[in-house]
């Protein structure tokens, strides 16, 4: 027999290839920031028509047209009730709507609902449906459709809620075709934002193959790993929306390839483009850049020595120079943070915390000395390797901590490994991550609750638990805001993590496009986008 050795050579090369690829990690496939529900407790009763603000109306508006948006990862589900990944939510936002819908300021306005009331004890929500809202299949939306959809999410029939946000639902009733009454087991002020969840036709179980919603665009075609296309829904209840005839979300995992596709005109909108790439584009393209309600932070594993000592955590906070990171890594496009909430949530944001630990190397050193670590220590900073932004940040931080004698070893980890070992397994010392935007502060801050399954900081504070629990149950608006602010202050004072910044979300657009609105949420809203001539 000839050349049998060659086979094994080949076999090993294939194996090596798959292992190497596994080890290196996929560049973007793990970009699943998650955002299962948008939120904002707006004024408890609102009847306003959705505002349609157009941003840059220059040149004449052209009706119709087709736009290609580059997205970095595939969708997890087309069924809006099963989809958890933020990358999916941002696409499906165009196809589905709930009783309420968030706008570009992060406020909730009624969508399928026309108005709603909340009972004084905060447990009963009564919605009046808007008339003339139709599904993409032409049927009018009735209260039965809403009841079916939200029952499905709450798992009324199965006992297993599809969305944890619906855990607190006691019952959903449809007394007439235009009224929906939702009763909660207990007061939960953060529930309202869950009602942005999609309404689908009564009894419809084929959403994952052929999704039917009420949004401005209807589903046309999905090719796994390649693209999802949607087209204009002519019967949308807001007149003049959408303008475009067709939108294609094209999956391009490699950022370089995305950039090339944009430059060559194959792609019209490139969301979340890196700051450096944006600068490289110059003025041939439009750029939009704004805070995105993301909290980039270095977390300590507080169960591990020496991070169980608050002095060590404070020392590291004093040693990390956030301004330097914003200037160096985000090229200035970031908002400095002092706790786990972005100023995008202006109502709840506690100002001034970002200066709690103004950089002070001497103070950091003396705190370390007080903790018995005069000569510093060695530690490992694990970074999800698919996020270049975090990897760059890690390098700056390693160098900054070197100044107080803390030797940081940077360990890049693949996203799948990060999720399992670090996030769920809590097996790490330091890590960097971006915790993303919800519209309700409770949904963001609840990770720090002592018994939260996602408390990968291992942070435990009775005072914090009590503060946050009373905040979410507090019906009085002003008092609730105060409690949320207090919760942020506790996190800062306890040095629960090193809060870095809310990095700007950059979007590069074809110069002919106008009307693009940027959200403080994981959303690409194409409904108001149009071409100019």
């Amino acid at each position: 027999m000839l050349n049998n050795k060659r086979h094994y050579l080949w076999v090993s090369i294939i194996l090596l290839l798959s292992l190497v690829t596994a080890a290196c990690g996929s560049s973007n496939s793990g970009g699943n920031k998650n955002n299962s529900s948008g939120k904002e407790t707006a004024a408890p009763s609102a009847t306003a028509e959705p505002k349609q603000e157009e941003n840059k109306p220059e040149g004449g508006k052209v009706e119709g047209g087709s736009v290609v948006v580059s997205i970095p990862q595939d969708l997890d589900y087309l069924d809006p009730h099963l989809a958890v990944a933020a990358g999916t939510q941002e696409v499906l936002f165009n196809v589905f709507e709930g009783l309420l819908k968030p706008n570009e300021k992060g406020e909730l306005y009624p969508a399928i609902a026309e108005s709603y009331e909340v009972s004084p004890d905060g447990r009963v929500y009564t919605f009046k449906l808007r008339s003339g809202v139709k599904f993409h299949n032409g049927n009018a939306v009735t209260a039965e459709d809403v009841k079916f959809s939200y029952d499905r999410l709450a798992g009324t029939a199965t006992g297993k809620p599809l969305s944890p946000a619906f855990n607190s639902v006691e019952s959903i009733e449809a007394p007439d075709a235009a009224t929906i009454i939702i009763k909660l087991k207990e007061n939960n002020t953060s529930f309202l934002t869950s009602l942005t969840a999609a309404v689908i036709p009564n009894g419809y179980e084929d959403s994952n193959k052929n999704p039917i919603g009420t949004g401005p665009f209807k589903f046309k075609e999905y090719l796994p790993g390649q693209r999802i296309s949607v087209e204009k829904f002519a019967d949308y209840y807001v007149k003049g929306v959408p303008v475009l005839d067709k939108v294609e979300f094209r999956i391009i995992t490699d950022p370089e390839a995305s950039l090339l596709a944009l430059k060559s005109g194959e792609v019209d909108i490139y969301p979340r483009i890196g700051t450096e790439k944006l600068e490289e584009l110059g003025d041939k393209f439009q750029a939009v850049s704004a805070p995105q309600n993301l909290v980039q932070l270095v977390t300590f594993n507080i169960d591990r020595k020496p991070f169980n000592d608050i002095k060590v955590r404070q020392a590291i906070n004093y040693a990390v120079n956030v301004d330097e990171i914003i200037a160096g890594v985000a090229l200035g496009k970031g908002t400095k943070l002092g706790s786990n909430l972005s100023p995008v949530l202006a109502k709840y944001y506690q100002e001034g915390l970002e200066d709690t630990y103004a950089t002070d190397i001497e103070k950091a050193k003396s705190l370390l000395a007080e903790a018995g670590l005069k000569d510093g220590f060695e530690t490992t900073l694990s970074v999800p390797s698919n996020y270049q932004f975090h990897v760059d940040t890690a390098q700056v931080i390693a160098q900054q901590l070197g100044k107080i004698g803390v030797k940081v070893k940077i360990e890049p980890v693949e996203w799948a490994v990060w999720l399992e070992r670090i996030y769920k397994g809590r097996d790490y010392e330091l890590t960097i991550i971006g915790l993303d935007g919800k519209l309700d502060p409770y949904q963001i801050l609840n990770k720090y609750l002592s018994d939260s399954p996602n408390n990968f900081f291992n942070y435990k504070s009775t005072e914090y638990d009590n503060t946050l629990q009373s905040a979410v149950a507090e019906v009085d608006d002003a008092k609730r805001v105060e409690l949320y602010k207090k919760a942020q202050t506790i996190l800062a004072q306890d040095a629960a993590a090193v809060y870095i910044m809310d990095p700007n979300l950059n979007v590069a657009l074809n110069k002919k496009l106008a009307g693009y609105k940027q959200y403080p949420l994981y959303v690409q809203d194409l409904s108001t986008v149009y071409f100019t001539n």
Partner: protein
Amino acid sequence: MNYYVRRLLTLLLTVFFVVTLTFAAFRIIPGNPALTILGTEASDEQIALLEAKLGIDRPLPEQFADWLKGALALDFGQSLRFSEPVLKLIQDRFPVTISLSLLALAITVAAAVPLGIAAARSKGKVADMIISIGTQLGLAIPSFWMGIALILVFGLALRWFSVSTYVPWSESPYLALKSLLLPAIALAVPQIAIVVRYLRTTLLEQLNLDYVRTARSKGLKERSVLFQHVLRNALLPVITVVGINFGELLAGSLVVEQVFTLPGFGSLLITAIGNRDYPLVQGMVLLIAFIVVTVNFIVDLSYRVLDPKIRMK
């Protein structure tokens, strides 16, 4: 007959070996498909629900036996990530990768054989020098870099080719060829360099052998010495190289596809690995291993055609 049976058995055994190792390797490395699909905001119940649905909560031997049983009946199961049959996903993507590899192979052979002959015939002259410098460069430049350079020149500056649009063969063979040409060239360049150097060396070796002197002395023209006698012998090792490099072409096309955003195996395999989509990875590795082993088999057979002296035992 005996030989072929044995070869076939080795072939199957090799593929089985690859698949088993892939299965084992992917269960050993950390990462949970359900978690990767759902991300950071999923509740434990959502994760458990999905794990049960995907069937990844069962014991490993059971999962492997199930998969193997299915694979024998050409049923590779459902992709965890895309909730579609693995076979369908592979069928959608395979034509892109295989046509890219074959196109690159054709370009390699079409360019390398004349160049190799030219280099051997003009040994030590300017043409040889130029080809030698060219092959050095070709070897040094990685395909993906070459790909980016080609896009910049022909896609962005000259606008001869469109970037990141793939047109299937069934829609328009002309446009399909157009969308595959640049990546195929990027892929072929290093291969051309290898084959040219190899062919030049073997040709020169052969030219020094006795039979060449005999042929020349009996008055044959240099041209027929070269094409009728020498080339035939010189091609034998070259075919080996091309055969071996077919696997490299496949591997290279996985990378180049990424640069050109072609919907082939490359992006699918990376997504599958990143998401720990076990059935999909296994299905794809099985197919790639099968192709590579088969190509090697064909290469072995071709020896016999080219040189009847070689006996298959």
